[in-house]
């Protein structure tokens, strides 16, 4: 793949040295490529497989199994609302509905205008500050509907500024 950033390529070469067997670097390479490209394309699957001396199916079966890897781009920001019990009993479903309403989008879709993708995910291991939401890599705690609206406003403002 010719369009990977030079920094990504050097991190890929470095991370492979951590393991006595190259195949172990499959998940790290998938993470690095997804961070660089936004998603895992068919071309990326073949490239990673070749890089590690594997068949494409060995990488493809990981992409289809592990929930964090995706084969399509997401919106500019990726909103992941925890669905699991501790968050749900503290209002996680209401929080998720608020995000969908604010961006006029369904679960797992890129919102009209491309600002966000809203998703329900399973336990984020911050149950004491439920309900919790991750926006890309950033954790937000105790996100009731009011706090959800603040987060939405910020994302919309960023989007407007970018245009």
């Amino acid at each position: 793949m010719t369009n990977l950033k030079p920094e990504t390529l050097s991190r890929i070469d470095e991370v492979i040295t951590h393991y006595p067997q190259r195949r172990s670097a499959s998940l790290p390479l998938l993470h690095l490529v997804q961070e660089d490209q936004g998603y895992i394309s068919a071309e990326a699957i073949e490239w990673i497989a070749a890089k590690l001396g594997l068949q494409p199916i060995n990488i493809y079966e990981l992409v289809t199994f592990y929930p964090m890897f995706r084969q399509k781009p997401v919106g500019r920001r990726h909103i992941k609302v925890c669905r699991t019990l501790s968050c749900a009993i503290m209002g996680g479903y209401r929080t998720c509905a608020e995000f969908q309403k604010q961006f006029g989008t369904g679960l797992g879709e890129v919102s009209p205008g491309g600002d966000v993708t809203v998703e329900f995910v399973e336990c984020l291991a911050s149950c004491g500050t439920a309900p919790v939401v991750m926006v890309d890599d950033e954790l937000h705690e105790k996100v009731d509907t009011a706090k959800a609206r603040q987060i939405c406003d910020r994302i919309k403002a960023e989007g407007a500024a970018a245009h």
Partner: protein
Amino acid sequence: MPAPEQHRLIFRHIDEAGYTPALDCYVRNGGYEVLRKALQRKPEELVEEVKKSGLRGRGGAGFSCGLKWSLVDRKSGKPIYLVVNADESEPGTFKDRYIMHQDPHQLIEGIMITCFANKVERAFIYIRGEFPDGAKILEKAIAEARAAGFAGPNVLGSGYGCEVYVHRGAGAYICGEETGLIESLEGKRPYPRIKPPYFPAVLGLYQCPTIVNNVETLCHVKHIADMGGEAYAKIGTPNNTGTRILCVSGHVQRPGYFEFEVGKVTMGQLLNEVCGGPLPGRTFKAVIPGGSSAKVLRFGERYKGKRKVGADMVEYDWGVEDIPMDFDCLAMIGSMGGSGGVIVMDDSVSMVEALGNINAFYSHESCGQCTPCREGSIWMKKITARMVHGAARPEDGALLKSVADQIAGRTICAFGEACAWPTQSFIAKFGDEFRAYAQAKAAPRPANAPELV
């Protein structure tokens, strides 16, 4: 009886003002001194200390750490690996998050002592994919420790060397199961391995002897090396030594994490005093004591039997509030201490809907390798979802139970039990609610009742 004071051994510096994850802060607070002393001892002595300490694994199963270490095949001539289970995926559990984000060097010191004691030269921290910041903090901390000679080649001039690497997961719960984790670390789908023959102590990572320990467990190792196994065993209660972090979430006034000597605090003290009791106008209905797969406890039920206290057998007659929070007592009353995740539900929660939420989790997370688990977890999810969103029938509880009963004991790994126990216990304890759910649905819902399915 008032709740005892917390005993903060692992969480001593968590949330402390001015305490940072940086190496200089850790060293200023006495960090890596235990490692320095440990390197001057024989590795076997350190293993002995851990055996004497009685430390039980803090990840979920509560297996003896010393015994786990002593099962490692040291004669094979193959390298021995340490894999740190930082997957923290059991719903209701959120303790390792704070160790890794706020005090990463405590974990690294525990890792280095463990590696030295077990002659490990390469260790991997398998951290869940949902902790991207945690992974970065750990990588930075490892680089700092390596530059200062606390990790890497020739640790503190001892001639002993060990490399530690961070490996990120990608959102799959099953990677918390140790053999699934190992498969994942080998770059595969995390399908748990069948035991025997694939006990990690003999045939683990790359078919080499492997120790898999939880983050909190390895932090305890540091304190055991510091104070000695005998002194550590005096903390806590017999067979339940040391301290443990309890994570409380759900319907209490002050949820959070609390570190107590094991067995010294009761469920009632924890929920009513430490966590401030139920939310205004509510009463406690149910509590899951050790992560979402632990069997649920119903407020108002009694647990009776005999148990060993010292040399004597004494009778006990407990309500939920009276249960001491240790491995043995929670097992005795038919549940488990598990990973220390205490999930509290009050009278606004429908038990049918709560089970529907849990079932959706397990059906999403089943790896699909064993038919009873793959199909059973989906059926249980579909039945509870139909009860909530479609027609509920009085016999659905019995149907759910029959599915659950055919999963447990018929799978390669403990996920089978983990997904069956919630259904089995919810039906056993709240069977009436399942039979009468159709009527309950027709009645007005309690104010602010959460949507769960």
